């Protein structure tokens, strides 16, 4: 016994897909959490579910229909939110239920086709095939590169939208770009943890790293590290213990959050901050 199972193709594909999704989620998630948009990922994933059902219904590669549906729905909702001034949480509720509603109708209308509903709801990273893995690597590379290029305007926009506008940041265009990146991130993460657990990967690593009292760049690096570590440990442990990888990843992230909370409560981070200040 050992880690022989890591030489299996499906395990390697799962790890690569998992890491790609974990990095994107942590990066996009930090901006979402700071904008108080934590549940936006959930809403997008429900829209994506509708898109996947549409793909199966139309006999098109479901990842593309899921991307098209969630990106256009997210853009539409952003525009609607601006013009009707409905609140963020209400907009999320609209997206969430309409995506799921559409999915359920399509699944029931075409009761002949066999979608593995469970794998979309709770993830199926071990079933990722080579072509999916390659598309995910390409897509996540694009998401990460775009986020790195726009990291400073995105931070400014997240910190204070009006001041960013005055300082010459094209706030509206940036908002649409970011929404599209978030939608694409959700699509690749859906395979890892499923529709119902996406919020965990978006929120948990970020609220954990934010507790450590660091600046923006370090907070993002810590968040990415936590997210990647939890994903790798979760996938690796799930095989010998015969557990669901998605649930394992999420529970490891929860443990990290609780551990950090306790450490902070014990004064670990505040002491460091004081020492830093003295030096």
């Amino acid at each position: 016994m050992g880690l022989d199972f890591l030489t299996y193709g499906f395990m390697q594909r799962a790890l690569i897909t998992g890491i790609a999704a974990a990095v994107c989620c942590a990066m996009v998630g930090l901006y979402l959490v700071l904008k108080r948009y934590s549940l936006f990922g959930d809403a997008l994933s429900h829209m994506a579910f509708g898109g996947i059902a549409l793909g199966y219904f139309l006999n098109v590669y479901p990842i593309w229909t899921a991307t098209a549906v969630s990106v256009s729905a997210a853009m539409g909702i952003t525009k609607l939110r601006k013009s009707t001034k409905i609140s963020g949480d209400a907009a999320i509720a609209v997206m969430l239920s309409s995506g799921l509603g559409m999915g359920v109708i399509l699944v029931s209308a075409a009761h002949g086709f066999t979608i593995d509903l469970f794998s979309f709801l709770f993830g199926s990273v071990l079933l990722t095939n080579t072509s999916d893995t390659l598309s995910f690597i390409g897509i996540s590379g694009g998401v990460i590169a775009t986020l790195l290029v726009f990291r400073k305007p995105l931070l400014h926009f997240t910190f204070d939208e009006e001041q960013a506008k005055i300082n010459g940041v094209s706030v509206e265009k940036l908002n649409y770009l970011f929404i599209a990146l978030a939608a694409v991130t959700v699509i690749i993460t859906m395979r890892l943890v499923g529709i119902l657990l996406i919020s965990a990967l978006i929120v948990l690593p970020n609220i954990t790293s934010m507790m450590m009292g660091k600046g923006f760049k370090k907070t993002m690096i810590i968040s990415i590290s936590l997210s990647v570590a939890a994903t790798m440990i979760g996938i690796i442990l799930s095989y010998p213990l015969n557990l669901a990888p998605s649930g394992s990843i999420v529970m490891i992230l929860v443990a990290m959050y609780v551990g950090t909370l306790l450490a902070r409560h014990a004064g670990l981070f505040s002491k460091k901050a004081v020492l830093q200040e003295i030096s």
Partner: protein
Amino acid sequence: MPMNVLDVENVSASYNGALAISKISFNVREGDLLGIVGPNGAGKTTLFRAILGLQNYQGKIKLFGYEGSQYASLLPMVGYVPQKVSLEPNFPATVYDVVEMGLLSEKKLNKGAKLIQNCGCCWNRIFGTSSKNSEKIEKALEIVGLEPLRSRRISELSGGEQQRTFIASALVKEPVLLILDEPVTGVDMEVQNKFYSVLRKINKENKITIIWASHDLTAISDHATKVACMNRDLFFHGEKDEFFSNKDLIKTYSESAMQMHMHNHSHEV
């Protein structure tokens, strides 16, 4: 004759459905340090938001004589310190990160500088033309006395320190027009005095035009060169001495502001 940096012509705007400013007209000339006084709810912030393109309004506003898309190109050259910024309690941006935000659109700043040169003015640099961005940030931090706190999270600072960070963020881009909305509210006297001396220095030496809203009539009388007094309508706009010798001050300025004036003077005695 100095050029007009800002022309406000017959500007009206609403806040939450109610008329907040009504047909206001005034201009600000290059090098002015204009103090705007008016009671709470007088429409000072609404006026600033209209100038900054954050608020719909009727009438005309021109920057260096420009309107429309050229006006929008010049906006990044305007520094703005709002009255209050609400911050997320755990927001991980450091003081340095926030000051750096002022320098985000260098291309737009240069485009704005060209427009200003076209109308015969120049971009008066505070930090010298050869300064790198990191040097500008350090110098802006030095002006507000925040160098030791540069790596601290802004959300961990006191209200006064946060306000100084926003002042540094507005100064770092070397604005042609600086708009300050009660900038030293919640800041201690020592920093207030330092701030006022910085204000005078960049106004006199770097010829940066400043519009500054305040309730502190003593500070206005000590530092401003011109005064505007408003309470939805504009009651007065002109030289400082003319304002302070005006016996109708009580009528034009609200009773509460007057009480503040008396209060400040009683402190001096």
